[in-house]
């Protein structure tokens, strides 16, 4: 076990020993872990997702409020199905909860999305996949408040970064959620952690082949598709270590990425040594 002084002396590698983790979590399947997908709905009939979606709800405007009804309209765009497909490949036994906020008629950008997040936190789903965001400044404060509530309720919120020049919410709130941008590497276990950056996690997000409408598959690129990779990884971790808090989940991701990076560096220097011999 590491000491605080070792951490302060900037030996980040030693933080991984706090968890004393081995690689056995990688063999888990996300069994019993609840995952909310706040998106365009999920096509429950897709071969990759049959029997995995425990509940589907849909946002509806009701006298200036947003309410959620049971939904059988599936996915309006394909995007929610794509995200669920990615999570399911990594964590095939995770339990999905579809919260449809896109394509819900008459609801403005941001309002339904905020209500969907509140619904997921109230239901205390363990992981919340947010492959969307808003840049509207008026949502800054309510989203911040909602993410604090998620953090206190023990819900791990994972959000896709925006690749536009403006900040998007909630992906820039680095303290209480995990934000993800895409990288080219296709191995889901090979995610990156850029400590100190606004968007800390990187995961596969370039031409990811995943489920789409009408029982088909598509190759998709975007931060939207990097986010569910990290959700899948967290589902495995939470099955193995069900008591992890959102803070510990983030620290575990950091430790795993750090350890892997050091191993890679050690391998590289070994190879260089061999070459110079």
């Amino acid at each position, binding site marked *: 076990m590491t000491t605080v002084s070792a951490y302060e002396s900037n030996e980040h590698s030693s933080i991984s020993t706090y968890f004393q983790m081995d690689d056995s979590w990688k063999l888990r399947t996300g069994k019993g872990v609840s995952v909310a997908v706040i998106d365009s709905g999920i096509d429950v009939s897709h071969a990759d997702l049959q029997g995995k979606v425990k509940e589907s709800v849909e946002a509806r405007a009701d006298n200036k409020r947003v309410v959620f009804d049971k939904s059988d309209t599936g996915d309006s*765009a394909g995007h929610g199905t794509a995200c669920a497909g990615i999570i399911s490949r990594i964590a095939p036994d995770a339990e999905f909860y579809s919260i449809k906020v896109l394509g819900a008629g008459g609801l403005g950008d941001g309002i339904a999305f905020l209500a969907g997040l509140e619904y997921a936190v109230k239901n205390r789903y363990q992981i919340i996949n947010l492959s*969307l965001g808003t*840049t509207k400044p008026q949502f800054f404060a309510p989203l911040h408040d909602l993410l604090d509530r998620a953090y206190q309720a023990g819900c791990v919120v994972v959000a896709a970064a925006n690749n536009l*020049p403006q900040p*998007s919410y909630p992906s820039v709130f680095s303290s209480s959620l995990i934000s993800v941008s895409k990288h080219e590497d296709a191995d889901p276990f090979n995610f990156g952690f850029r400590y100190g950056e606004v968007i800390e996690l990187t995961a596969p997000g370039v031409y990811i082949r995943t489920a789409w409408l009408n029982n088909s598959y598509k190759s998709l*690129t*975007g931060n939207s598709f990097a986010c569910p990779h990290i959700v899948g990884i967290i589902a495995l971790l939470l099955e193995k270590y069900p008591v992890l808090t959102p803070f510990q989940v983030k620290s575990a991701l950091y430790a795993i990425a750090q350890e892997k990076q050091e191993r890679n560096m050690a391998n590289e220097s070994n190879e260089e040594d061999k070459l110079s011999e």
Partner: protein
Amino acid sequence: MSDDEIKNLEIKLRSIVETIDVANALTAPLTLSIENLLRISAAEINSEEASVIVRDGDAGDLRFLSAIGKVAEHLKTLKIPSGKGIAGFVFSSGQPMALADVGAEDTFYAEVDKQTGYSTQTILATPLRHDGEIIGVLEYINRIGEPPFEPFTSAEMDKVALFAEAIASLVNAYESAKLFRDLGDKMLSADEKLKLEEMRKWIKDLRETNEHKEMIDLALIVRELAGRGDAERQMCKGILESVLQYSDTKTETSFLSF
């Protein structure tokens, strides 16, 4: 109609036509600039089919504001129903997205392809934002040359995000100017007392008067000056206000009455 009513109607019509013409004079260079930027950005990512898609009404439907490429003219006549297709998703989610294999699942483009004989294979779509608000979608289709087309890369997605910022400012300016035009159109069509033929002739005569042409020129000069910076804007405002004050003391004020 009494003489007074006719006089009032004439004043009203004159102001409507002036509004429409100023709006047209302002929107025309904007649409041209949007198209130019579309062309430049498409060339940057080795594509030649590009479009700017904007909101159409309050129900979340979308329409093509501008398009370049083989099916551009056809696209401009079409609407995308709320939430449909890649553009619908990008518009409602605010997340950029690229697809390597469009196929029949994108029902909107499947229908367009059927009508035009074109084959949509790969798409890159990114949201257009202004002041935090999503105002449209910037979309590129296929590559230059023959299929099969290389999918758009992650780096190209980041590159067009920068063009999207510039295009979004132009689209926002266009939409603001268009509001005036729509307002003018609505005011004209609402007045049932007017005979359309007579009105057209009246509008044509009005447009040909020197006074009207000068007014449009003046609007363009003001717009040009206003775009040059804060100092120019302040100076222009100061000069125009002085002229107004001066003319208020005179009986003849029509040259600045718009």
